[in-house]
């Protein structure tokens, strides 16, 4: 059983390395994103073999969503269809090679310098519960603060970039509501030409 696990582990690490290498050899943004996803999925499965059941499956889950969103944005901004117009995917060679070498050396040093746990997991140990206690126990403040901050940033970015503002179209000069119904806009002098104010919006339709 352990030999079988070892074989699967080696195969998966080979697959992770191969797909990671193909990321740089392909000629399309979308293929690139999903090759990276395959690499991460292989890593997630390796974590499953190492009895990290939650982190392993969650890696697959998160990477699928992340790479999907990344691929979508790439297509939206660089509509590179499947095979019609191949792209050259690598640039800034020297910087990339240097960064790669430094990262590899650093990670290798970290692995060699640290003492990795070698004892097998005692059977029946509730690993998921332990992980949850760790995440939502002493580290909860950090994780929750970071999570809520990120969410607020995302929402704020969308609101700031959207043309359809809360007080009307951003291109027509958004205007805060008056202090009394129908009154002059609060906190601002009416200085625009007012071109957009009698524009009839499409969203005022009847709901009946």
């Amino acid at each position: 059983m352990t030999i079988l696990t070892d074989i699967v582990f080696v195969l998966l690490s080979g697959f992770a390395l191969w797909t990671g290498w193909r990321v740089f050899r392909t000629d399309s943004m979308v293929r690139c994103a999903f090759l990276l996803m395959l690499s991460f999925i292989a890593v997630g499965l390796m974590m499953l073999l190492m009895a990290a059941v939650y982190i392993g499956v969650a890696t697959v889950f998160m990477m699928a969503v992340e790479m999907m969103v990344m691929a979508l944005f790439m297509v939206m901004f660089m509509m590179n269809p499947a095979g019609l117009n191949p792209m050259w995917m690598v640039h800034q060679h020297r910087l990339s090679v240097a960064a790669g070498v430094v990262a590899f050396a650093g990670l290798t040093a970290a692995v060699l310098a640290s003492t990795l746990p070698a004892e097998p997991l005692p059977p029946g140990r509730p690993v998921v519960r332990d992980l949850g206690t760790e995440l939502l126990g002493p580290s909860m403040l950090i994780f929750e603060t970071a999570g809520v901050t990120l969410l607020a940033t995302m929402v704020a970015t969308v609101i700031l970039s959207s043309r359809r503002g809360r007080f009307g179209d951003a291109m027509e000069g958004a205007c805060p509501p008056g202090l009394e119904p129908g009154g002059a806009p609060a906190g601002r002098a009416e200085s625009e030409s007012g071109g957009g104010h009698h524009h009839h919006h499409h969203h005022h339709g009847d709901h009946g």
Partner: protein
Amino acid sequence: MAVSRLSSLAAAAPAPVYAAIGEGAAAAIEDLFLDARLDRAASPRHAALLLVCGRFRDDDIADLCRLHDQLPHPRATLRWRAEALPGFTPDGVDLAPDADVAAALHAVYRALVAGARASEPALLPDEPPNPWRGRGDHGQGGEGMMGGVPYGRPMAMTDDDLRDGLALDAYAAPFGPFLSAFPPGLRLDLTLQGDVIQKLAVARPPFDQPLEAAHPLRLAARMLLPLGLPGLAERMLRRAAGLAPGTPAAVADLARALRWRGARAALPPGLGRIPGGGDVRTRLDGLLAAAGRGEAAPAPGAPMALSELLVGREWAEAMLVLASLEPGWLRRACRADMPHAPSEDAA
């Protein structure tokens, strides 16, 4: 043995037909597809038979040839109530104007599946319209990471945007005149960002369909297809097919079904509003009410250009708006958006 079983199973399937609808043929085609022996294919790739029906403009012939070649083998063309089409010359079958078309289509389909009838060869050479003109140091299309004009088509590049300032890639292409979701004959030159229509020019207006003012129920049924309700649309068409113009139809059950299926709620209020002609939702209500009273379709409202209605809309909303427009009104709206007069269409 197994192969012949598979063949006989396939021969019993409804024949998948893609209809190229010409002038004056829309209503007849809609009634034809009420027959259970036929499937109306949404894409030519899904069809075995190409049914050519009605009158076409000279400009449409090249598109008709391209459409023909998009059908996978085995394929066959059938002409029904179609005038002579110089330049469109597949072998095909000519059907008598009063033939049992569904039966004839299915017979040709069975012959195709059984191998008794040879598949039609392509009409056009299968090669890119222009040579590959890739540039760049590494064989990619353009300079750096984007751009280029592979096969004569400019690659999409980022462009200003009408909606949210995301400035996505703009994709420009002609759509129609045989697109199943468009009114037959309409050909639009569109620029899309994501699925938002950024620019619109009408290359060819839709065909005149004199018979289709026949019943408002028929117009209402067309609005249900983009809503994903083909079943209810078929029930409406079946009711409309049996009625002479001006006869009141029983629509209470259809109106109830529309409400229960959330068709009215699915239509965004204010979508496709025309001064004096309501929005998509009120037009659907108006058509049903008119059908119930045996009246003609309600007044379509003040004239507008098609681009005023469709630019800035997402594709699905644009298809709903297109389906909701009274055919005569739509033809006038298209003329307002045609870059040159129809007489210049020599190319």
